[in-house]
């Protein structure tokens, strides 16, 4: 079979399997779903890298991440909202760390919610930095799990795009935009 690959990112392929694509993006670990989203942020690579490398910061813009505790320089503990009122927790190990360029991590000891991720920062001249986040994971309970995830507006493709937009807002404007009018309304939105 001839390889007629083009130059588009692996996650935008129509056919190739997620596992093959993940390998192309330099991700390891187990999974059946690959998501990659890019956003351009008007800040330097170093600023963005530093903010992201401090893992507890991720909870400020990742809607479903309730808390990330740092265990040691390479290990963090993630507490993430699942469907309904549930939470899911796992440990993640940093698998790659290139200051100002890329950070990759993978969950350990969590066969049910096996996932790995990578974020890459590339110079974009006067536009700032292109940030590409790639997430590779095994959907909980396969198809049914995905369906539930979608129902709860937690479908990771959309979720990743929204999270990156919030990251951009926070880094460019110092705040996350909200259309709420009152504190109570905003709390209801976040809940």
């Amino acid at each position, binding site marked *: 079979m001839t390889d007629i690959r083009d130059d588009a990112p692996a996650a935008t392929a129509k056919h190739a399997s997620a596992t093959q694509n993940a390998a192309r993006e330099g991700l390891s670990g187990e999974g059946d779903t690959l998501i990659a989203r890019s956003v351009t942020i008007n800040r330097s690579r170093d600023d963005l890298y530093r903010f992201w490398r401090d893992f507890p910061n991720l909870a400020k813009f990742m809607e479903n991440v309730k808390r990330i505790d740092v265990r040691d320089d390479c290990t963090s503990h993630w507490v993430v909202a699942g469907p309904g009122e549930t939470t899911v927790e796992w440990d993640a190990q940093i698998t790659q760390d290139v200051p100002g360029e890329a950070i990759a991590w993978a969950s350990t000891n969590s066969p049910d919610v096996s996932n790995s991720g990578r974020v890459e920062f590339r110079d974009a001249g006067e536009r700032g930095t292109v940030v590409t986040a790639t997430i590779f994971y095994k959907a909980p309970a396969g198809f049914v799990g995905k369906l539930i995830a979608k129902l709860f507006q937690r479908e990771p493709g959309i979720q990743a795009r929204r999270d990156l937009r919030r990251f951009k*807002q926070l880094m*460019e404007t110092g705040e996350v935009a909200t*259309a709420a*009018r009152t504190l109570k309304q905003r709390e209801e939105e976040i809940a």
Partner: protein
Amino acid sequence: MRALTWHGKHDVRVDTVDDPEILNPRDAIIKVTSTAICGSDLHLYDGFIPTMKAGDILGHEFMGEVVETGPGSTLRKGQRVVVPFTIACGSCYHCGKHQYSACDNGNPADNQDIAQELYGQPMSGLFGYSHMTGGYAGGQAEYVRVPFSDVGPIVIPDGIDDDRVLFLSDILPTGWQAAENAEIEPGDTVVVWGCGPVGLFAVQSAFLMGAERVIAIDHFPRRLELARRFGAETINYEETRTYEALIEMTGGIGPDACIDAVGLEAHGFFADNVWDQIKVSTFTGTDRTHSIRQAIHACRKGGRISMPAVYGGFVDKFPLGAFMEKGLTLKTGQTHVQHYLPGLLNAIVEDKIDTTFLISHRLPLEQAPDGYRMFHDHQNDVTKVVLKPGLDRVAA
């Protein structure tokens, strides 16, 4: 507080709702002193704009007094400000290019999905204009939470009446940008479809930018009279065959630049318009588009089309062939209000631009539903309704 809320087609009410609060560092709270009903609000009133929710507070043209500020605001309590209808952060790539209505960050992340799917890219947030553009509460209320208050609102010097500056919030910069987008050259004949507030400001702006002639089209005698007052020649499209008149009035050439200031609710019963209306009522098309079609048809070869008018979705029977063959240019978009504010405020202070001629009715906020009905039903006489919270009840 009291606020004008939307409940469905032709159903707006003044309700009591919770006061707004400071939620982000750069916020300010404005106590509204004047707020206007816009032609764009009629699109909401008529139920043409998707993603509205019952209880949404309308209004994107407002000004008032600063009563509270977040730590990141540059405003001070007591200042009088006019607030742009576009919510822009001032620090993203587009804001850096002064393309404020394309701001990446003015629209909350979740609300950006709708426009991303529908248009390919999300737009900035707007006050009081559906959830696709943010779902922000609008200014037809006693108080408004204004995000990014260090970037948008312009401070008004003492001694300048609300009525003179209120329209900086939208329609004056919109008319100005419409004329700028027409790239007017000396000697040009510019045609403006629609003599609503946007069209009338486009007429004034076109002359200030050096147009030799401006021809204004509408069917409301009073609105045509206002256009004539600024030096425009007029066409009443109910009395006159517009295309033929335009060709004759330009010696067979056609106008150099055409401005469509009508938008998705074009009036009139032209053959293609009836077809559009049928499609609207059968939900097979969203926009009625006579004016833009006619502008493309009449425009001279190599001419320019400027389209401040709002269109919401997809358009059928767009004359792509004429557009291509004649080598036309089309410029459009929501107005980059922040970009024009200092210059236009100056022009008002120096009496180069008058905006007060437009105001036909002043009502208290409590009578806002009357204002909508009047503006909707009697466009000849009702050119602009300004709502003032606290004003005494008037007979309407």
